[in-house]
């Protein structure tokens, strides 16, 4: 048993668990008991692999970005999750979970979404399988992300505005949990990140682990060594990072760098740098690190990137941080936007602003010229054009 993976009680070190009201217990217990068994079934694996290949377009390329490499003096490889169907890594998880939901006999799917990427990925797999889909989205996010709302609706999903609290991602998650409480029998909740009660952090990480599984093989083919010196990924809740780190966790010589969003600066009061600003606590069913007041009220985070402004991180990340296995750093809005533009100009790839945070950290690293670096390019920037345009005045 790896010390970085979940134990039989649902914990990563002191983090994780299932801090849920009794009303959610039967659903969560059912998942806890069945997820591993179902995921190991041959028919499940077959269908999962087929869909990842023919529907999502995997394996996603591992691309040696030569001009970017020349600029920083290292061999920089981009894991191209941006080339997946629907434009981000989110689909890896929703494909896995829809197959799980089918095998659990669920007829109705619910999900939360912030910027809409996970909502779109969920609506997509529900269309694929002909299942009812309800997506909770903060009222404010619905206004900010009209194209993604339209995509979900085109695919037949019902988008419900979360009007409680701050009307953003954490409130959408609360609403989805409330829906699940009120619909305990026929509904499966597809959580979009490595958060939530056990077994969600583990099951989402497993579905996303395809990212590092492929990257390891691809790196071996390209360099003769499956292990890079550094692996970088951005962290909101942390699903792309969990997938990108997964198969490197035991290779202690590989330095894992998780990049959080500092917003307008870690101490500006407008930030989402959870490890820098948070304390241990419980949110959305697991014990982790979260941004909160002394009284334990959850603080609303800020980042220019809608995918990173979550007030917590998944419990596995909290453990990687606390145990020192991962290095957790943060990047401001400005640094991320510049890094996004740089990649666009040097490589002709417009990254999602989330992914730009990981790219921006290259500026802060010192290389000797021979290091191999893998960065998870978690999504494409199409959804962020508005933001890029406003920021740079194109």
């Amino acid at each position, binding site marked *: 048993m790896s010390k970085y993976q979940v134990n039989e*009680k649902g914990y990563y070190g002191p983090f994780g*668990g*299932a*801090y*849920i*009201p*009794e*009303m959610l*217990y*039967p659903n969560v217990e059912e998942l806890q008991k069945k997820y591993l068994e179902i995921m190991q079934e041959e028919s499940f694996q077959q269908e999962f692999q087929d869909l990842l290949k023919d529907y999502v377009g995997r394996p996603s390329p591992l691309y040696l970005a030569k001009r970017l490499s020349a600029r920083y003096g290292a061999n920089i490889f981009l894991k191209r999750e941006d080339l997946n169907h629907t434009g981000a890594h989110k689909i890896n998880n929703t494909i896995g979970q829809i197959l799980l939901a089918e095998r659990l006999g669920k007829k109705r799917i619910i999900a939360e979404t912030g910027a809409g990427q996970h909502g779109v990925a969920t609506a997509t797999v529900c269309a694929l399988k002909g299942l009812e889909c309800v997506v909770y989205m903060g009222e404010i996010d619905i206004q900010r992300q009209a194209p993604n709302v339209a995509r979900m609706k085109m695919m037949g999903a019902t988008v419900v505005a979360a009007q*409680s*609290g701050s009307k953003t991602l*954490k*409130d959408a998650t*609360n609403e989805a*949990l*409330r829906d699940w*409480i*009120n619909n*305990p029998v026929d509904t499966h909740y597809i959580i979009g990140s490595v958060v939530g009660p056990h077994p969600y952090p583990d099951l989402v990480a497993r579905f996303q682990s395809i990212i590092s599984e492929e990257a390891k093989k691809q790196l071996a083919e390209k360099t003769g060594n499956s292990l890079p010196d550094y692996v970088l990924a951005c962290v909101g809740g942390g699903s792309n990072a969990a997938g990108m780190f997964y198969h490197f966790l035991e290779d202690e010589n590989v330095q894992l760098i998780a990049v959080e969003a500092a917003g307008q600066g870690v101490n500006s009061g407008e930030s989402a740098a959870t490890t820098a600003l948070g*304390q*241990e*606590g*419980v*949110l*959305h*069913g697991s014990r982790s690190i*979260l941004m*909160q007041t*002394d*009284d*334990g*009220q*959850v603080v609303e985070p800020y980042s220019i990137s809608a995918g990173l402004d979550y007030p917590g991180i998944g419990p596995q990340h909290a453990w990687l941080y606390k145990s020192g296995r991962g290095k957790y750093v943060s990047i401001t809005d400005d640094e991320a936007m510049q890094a996004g533009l740089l990649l666009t100009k040097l490589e002709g790839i417009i990254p999602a602003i989330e992914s730009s945070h990981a790219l921006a950290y290259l500026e802060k690293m010192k290389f000797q010229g021979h290091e191999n670096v893998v960065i998870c390019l978690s999504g494409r920037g199409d959804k962020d054009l508005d933001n890029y345009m406003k920021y740079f005045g194109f």
Partner: protein
Amino acid sequence: MQVEDTLKNDTSKELLSIYYTAGYPHLDSTLAIAEKLEQAGADFLEIGFPYSDPVADGPVIQHSSEVALKNGMTLQLLFQQLQTLRSKVSIPVFMMGYFNTVLQYGVENFCKSCQEVGVNGAIIPDLPMYEYEELYQEIFERYGISNIFLVTPQTSPERIKKIDQLSNSFIYVLSSNATTGKNLEVGEQAEQYFQRLKDMNLTNPLVIGFGISDKHTFQKATTYAKGAIIGSAFVRLLKEENAMENIIPFIQSIKNP
């Protein structure tokens, strides 16, 4: 007053418990409401401490929590307000809220403060049984604070028995698998579930909550249980003008034959 006197007596008296959120509608209304409720004939109380992300609650209690937080309510302030609780109120009082607030206050600190002000127990819906047993039971018991568990129609008999063993005041029976504030419809299924619980002859008395809002639902619930809890319907009343004056008529409309 000892919890046992109220909850475990042998009389056939049906117990009415009221939930309300501390700091709502006004920051300093907590104790005044408690006094009024005792005067009106409520048998025990649940005082909610507000949390920013109350996932088990419907719109009414969510709203009261939001207002209470805006008013400046914190767990620390609430315990200060409750310093004079026992000079004013003698019926059992439980505190209800979410685990993160308790965790930041410190679980031991929380139990100690409860003991100091004379709170009898706590209802923390998102503190799971496993964690309670493993990490916190000893602390709760050391300070004589009861931890109240919830059961739902989906809770297995084995789990209910375990909950009964771990409890020492009452078992909070959810009328249905739902968030707070839905109306109770006692159909055949619900009656079977209540009957099933009643037939288990558990050590702890059963108190039914969620969906109880008036005399009719109160009477239905207490056919099967020792008592019932009204939350959202009472919090809604607090929003009205002259709320304080309406408390006594509200309680009497439920309790009087």
